[in-house]
């Protein structure tokens, strides 16, 4: 199942991108942290209440580059593709105009992220 909202990642067909969690049910203790760490909109996991195990329900909803669930799994039951440069190579293949279009919209929708003058800035330099 793939929500149309997540069908593309910066213009790239999401079904061609290999990124999502895999759970080893032997290692999963059913703590549920992965289920609730994943955001409600993406909601990649389900939870088997009888077996007391997390289950990957919607791997294609997984945010490309996010592996927060695996980092937090104390039992190392969650794995992601281990090629750390894979996502970076994908990023480099995003057309520049695609990023520009999306940025324009996001900044329009989130004016609080736009700083107009240097005086408003926290010191950084």
């Amino acid at each position, binding site marked *: 199942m793939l929500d149309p909202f997540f069908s593309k990642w*910066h213009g790239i067909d999401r079904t061609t991108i290999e990124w999502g969690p895999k*759970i080893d*049910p032997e290692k*999963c203790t059913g*703590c*549920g*942290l992965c*289920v*609730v*760490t994943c*955001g*409600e909109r993406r*909601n990649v*996991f*389900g*939870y*088997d*209440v*009888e*077996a007391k*195990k997390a*289950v*990957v*329900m919607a791997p294609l909803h997984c*945010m*490309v*580059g*996010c*592996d*927060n669930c695996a*980092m*937090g799994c*104390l039992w190392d039951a969650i794995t992601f593709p281990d090629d*750390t440069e894979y*996502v*970076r190579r*994908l*990023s*480099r293949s*995003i057309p*520049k105009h695609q*990023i520009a279009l*999306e*940025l324009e919209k*996001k*900044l329009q929708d*989130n004016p*609080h*992220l*736009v*700083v*107009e*003058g*240097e005086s408003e*800035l*926290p010191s*950084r330099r």
Partner: protein
Amino acid sequence: MAAKEWHGVDRSTLRWHPIIDEEKCTNCGLCLLTCGAGVFGYEKPINRFFVLNPGNCTLGCTTCGKVCPEAAISFPESSKVFIRNVIKQGKIFPKVKEELKARLEKFPEHELHQVNN
């Protein structure tokens, strides 16, 4: 704004945020696009992306760092080591249990019964 919490742990006492290497950064803006927490800002007069709200960064998240085409973003320490310390020291599991119950009530189709993984 209400105090930011991560599964019951007070976010304000913890240091976790991206650090941009300005030598490597090409200002493509993908970090701002990918972040759902509003960490990055855009400084319009000089057309620059920067860390505007470090305290908004989701604890242990390194997504912007992984998608950065130039590998220009780093974090104060290893995500795995950091977040597992927070989990253990914060004794978060009672809260996680409540959150799981609430999640399954809100999204009943995510409550499964004896499926083989």
